[in-house]
């Protein structure tokens, strides 16, 4: 009985130690790796509307930017052995009289290791409504960039910003609703 339990004890302790060491090595051998997917972003059209954010339950009228864009991403070389998942997100940033920093996520996607590694969006609407905190969006210069969050099997969770970004000046007038 003692033999069995002490053997089981040693096996358990050893396997836990081995697992811990392997995990540590997984982390250390991949710290320096940079994940840089290839991507292409094209802005086709931008319109601004003046409307309440109905989902918020508040009645005040805000500026809403409607964007039409193309997005191509290739992640096939991005999944090194310490990447479990990549969280992609498209960010719009601008500055106005009310707020120095405005950041809005327009679109995001979860890509697991093994999923289809390409994103091929044409003439897309934004996944999330691009509202302003108020109505100071017209004529503003907005920069749209792609970011990704690497979820490792074990280790750090970096947020990386893609080097290519697209900037545009938003329309200076609202687009009326009957203009299709």
């Amino acid at each position: 009985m003692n033999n069995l339990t002490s053997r089981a004890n040693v096996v358990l302790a050893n396997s836990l130690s081995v697992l811990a060491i392997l995990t540590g090595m997984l982390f250390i051998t991949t710290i320096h790796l940079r994940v840089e997917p290839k991507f292409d972003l094209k802005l086709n059209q931008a319109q601004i509307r003046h409307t309440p954010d109905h989902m918020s339950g508040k009645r005040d009228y805000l500026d809403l930017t409607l964007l039409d864009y193309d997005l191509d991403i290739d992640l096939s070389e991005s999944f090194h052995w310490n990447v479990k998942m990549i969280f992609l997100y498209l960010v719009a940033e601008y500055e106005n009289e009310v707020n120095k920093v405005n950041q809005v996520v327009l679109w995001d996607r979860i890509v697991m290791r093994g999923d289809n590694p390409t994103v091929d969006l044409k003439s897309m609407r934004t996944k999330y409504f691009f509202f302003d905190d108020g109505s100071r969006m017209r004529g503003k210069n907005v920069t749209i960039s792609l970011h990704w969050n690497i979820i490792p099997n074990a280790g750090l969770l970096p947020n990386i910003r893609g080097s290519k970004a697209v900037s545009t000046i938003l329309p200076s007038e609202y687009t009326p609703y009957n203009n299709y």
Partner: protein
Amino acid sequence: IRIVIIPTKQWYQRRVRAMQPAYYRGDLLFLTNQPEPVRVGDVVVFRVRGRNIPIVHRVLKVHEKDDGYVKFLTKGDNNNIDDRGLYVDGQLWLEEQDIIGRVKGYLPYVGMMTILMNDKPNLKYALLGLLALFVLIKREQ
């Protein structure tokens, strides 16, 4: 730097599914609480005012004024809608003071033992019973 185990209580389970498949119950998250600007994409741990339960979600929108006052909106990666339904009635934004920490590192499964013990107290008693048994049985070698 603080270490937090993703919540094990029953109440939480819904929320934890909200960040799957990145984080599951039993994963270990490493948090920092250095003051740094809140930016979209950050995964933050926050508490809704008046409730004691920390939530781990991602920042979706940020509006920051010249004087540094910042308000932001969060959403679980796996959820279809943002967190406004979780905030206090009528509250549309979180503020810096609501943040407990930011998630910077991650280890899977490490907290599973604790969760198993909490979920199945019988397991805890069984293990304690076994340990007691071994102590009693073991002869001096």
